[in-house]
């Protein structure tokens, strides 16, 4: 397994070019991708990445040899051309945006394929490896490439740093940006140029077919973890570099494999992982939150029952047998047992020989809940004109999210009421 440590320690001189090269490319594309993502134009990135192929081929035909500088120039020109055409078709309403994108993507790519096969059939020896632009080949990077990537990523980094405010505002709300006098057209065009630029360079590692993923996946993943644009840019950069690093590794270990697909798989794993795991917005935390909500509703409803029992019997903290509780209509036995257990642990209920009663802190809590429930019912009746016999159902779940601020508003709106729609007492706030 010496080759793994060779890779990690960059023992091979080509690795010292390839690894930093790929990191620069992927980090830069991911950062630029954040803006295309926020402007909801990810698919334009897709069109551009397919569209750079004919530019590269034409550069090769004109120049007769592989030269990174001409490749970039050709790629930029054909990439920008497709952006402009898509814009024109959409604005002039000849085609819908999605159709324009799909059409340009496939037509430009078709042209690229025609030129590529044409070049291949010409039998020019130096064309070998031109097809590595299709799916990417990190191992083919050399020192000159690295220098160009270094300079262009530095440039992009500086531009983003200087124009961050403008770029974010344009991505968020361009009509507002226009109204406060930002040069919106310029900023947007600059963003488009940056997008094309980062794609033109990035295809060296990822290839034209899958380049769009490197703009989309890291940005989407980063968006799941943060709301701040600076953090998003940094995170996306890191995610992009991680994906690129794994691609470089595959390129080193399995030279016949194209690197692009591995970078994309890695970036997608990060994106799907974030969609599942991210706090708050992620799928898992949503499921957990929902479970917690159910638990909260369960506990509060059980506390309400105890309050009602107290109210009916006139005693406070009256003890109730577990069997009687289990007969309550609206709970399954399993839920009731679970709820009782949680409430005991929270010290809201106490259990003596199978009989349950509210503790004093439990009584305070129960009273708070009953108060909210009855205030809410009253509100629905007064302001939504709901019949008292209909009120109960809809009040049921909503009372559990009422905050103290909303409670205070309700109290004021309703004029500090004491009687609810069912003519029972609304407990006062403090006692």
């Amino acid at each position: 397994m010496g080759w793994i440590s060779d890779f990690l320690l960059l023992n091979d001189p080509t690795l010292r070019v390839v690894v930093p090269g790929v990191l620069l490319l992927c980090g830069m594309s991911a950062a630029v991708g954040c803006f295309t993502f926020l402007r909801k134009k990810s698919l334009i990135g897709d069109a551009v990445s397919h569209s750079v192929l004919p530019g590269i081929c034409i550069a090769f035909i004109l120049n007769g040899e592989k030269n990174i500088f001409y490749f970039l120039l050709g790629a930029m020109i054909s990439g920008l051309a497709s952006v402009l055409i898509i814009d024109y078709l959409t604005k002039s309403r000849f085609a819908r945006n999605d159709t324009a994108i799909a059409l340009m993507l496939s037509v430009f790519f078709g042209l690229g394929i025609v030129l590529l096969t044409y070049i291949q059939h010409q039998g020019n020896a130096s064309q070998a490896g031109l097809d590595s632009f299709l799916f990417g080949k990190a191992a083919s990077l050399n020192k000159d490439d690295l220098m160009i990537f270094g300079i262009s990523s530095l440039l992009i980094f500086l531009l983003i740093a200087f124009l961050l405010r403008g770029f974010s505002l344009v991505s968020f709300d361009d009509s507002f940006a226009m109204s406060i006098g930002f040069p919106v057209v310029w900023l947007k065009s600059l963003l488009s140029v940056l997008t094309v630029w980062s794609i033109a360079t990035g295809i060296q590692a990822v290839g034209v077919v899958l380049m769009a993923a490197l703009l989309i996946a890291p940005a989407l993943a980063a968006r799941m973890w943060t709301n701040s644009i600076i953090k998003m840019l940094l995170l996306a950069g890191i995610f992009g570099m991680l994906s690129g690093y794994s691609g470089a590794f595959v390129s080193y270990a399995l030279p016949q494999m194209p690197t692009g697909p591995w970078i994309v798989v890695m970036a997608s794993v990060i994106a799907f992982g974030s969609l599942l795991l991210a706090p708050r917005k992620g799928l898992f935390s949503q499921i957990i939150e929902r479970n917690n909500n159910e638990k909260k509703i369960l506990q509060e409803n059980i506390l309400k029952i105890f309050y009602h029992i107290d109210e009916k019997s006139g005693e406070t903290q009256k003890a109730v047998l577990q069997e009687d509780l289990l007969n309550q209509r609206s709970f399954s036995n399993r839920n009731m047992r679970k709820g009782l257990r949680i409430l005991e642990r929270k010290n809201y209920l106490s259990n003596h020989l199978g009989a349950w009663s509210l503790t004093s802190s439990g009584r305070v809590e129960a009273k708070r809940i009953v108060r909210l429930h009855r205030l809410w019912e009253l509100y629905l009746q007064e302001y939504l004109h709901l019949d008292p016999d209909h009120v109960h159902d809809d009040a049921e779940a909503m009372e559990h999210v009422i905050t103290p601020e909303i409670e205070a508003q309700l109290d004021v709106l309703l004029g500090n009421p004491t009687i609810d729609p069912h003519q029972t007492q609304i407990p006062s706030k403090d006692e």
Partner: protein
Amino acid sequence: MKEVKSSSVEVHNLTVIYHRKPVLWNIDFQLPEGKLIGIMGPNGAGKSTLMKAILGLVPLNSGYAKIYDQDLKDVRSRVSYIPQRQTVDWDFPATVKDVVMMGRYQHRGLFGRITAKDKEIVDEALEQVAMQSFKNRQIAQLSGGQQQRVFLARALAQQADLYLLDEPFVGVDASTEESIVSMLRSLRDQGKTLIVVHHDLHTARDYFDWIVLLNASLIGVGPLDEIFTDEKLRTTYSGKLTVLSQVGDRLREKNFPVREK
């Protein structure tokens, strides 16, 4: 609740929640037959949602809507819906005649043949909205008012008894508005029932016989004079429902169910 002798639409205990936010709350009413009925209320009051709920286009969280005392699926052929004009793509490759012919699909099903009778009905419908001379025009080339007339003709071709119109006067010129109104009146005089989502309070007084006042919950329903009182209008439009929308927002933010279970 107001009892109506023979009801066209009956809504009972209807609650609709859209994207976890309650839009309609426990709506209960009966509407009579043979009237021109306006559904009124401020923006976001759930007017269009109520119409969609009656037509089964949005899922109901509770309650039901009945049309002529039957389930919607049994009386679909008696009901005609005119959606908001902006909800469809007017660049679609279809001529005026094609769109109006859609009104006959319900009678012919997905596969039945279009007969000469259908063509006659389509022609008549176009005649009634004064669009006969445009019948081979592509719909993209119509003005907003003309598009609305085409929609109305499609509904006429359906030969229904109950017409539900969602904001038919938005973006149409004054003369179209006038002619639509007179057409609606003549339909009413033929005994049809028309329910119209409308937001202009000034014209409502002239247009409608009955009014449904709505702001998330039902404020009032009945003949125009009974309902168009200052007090009722104030309750509808005063926007005292901020607490409700705050609670709705929190439900969504916290991923809470709206109803338990």
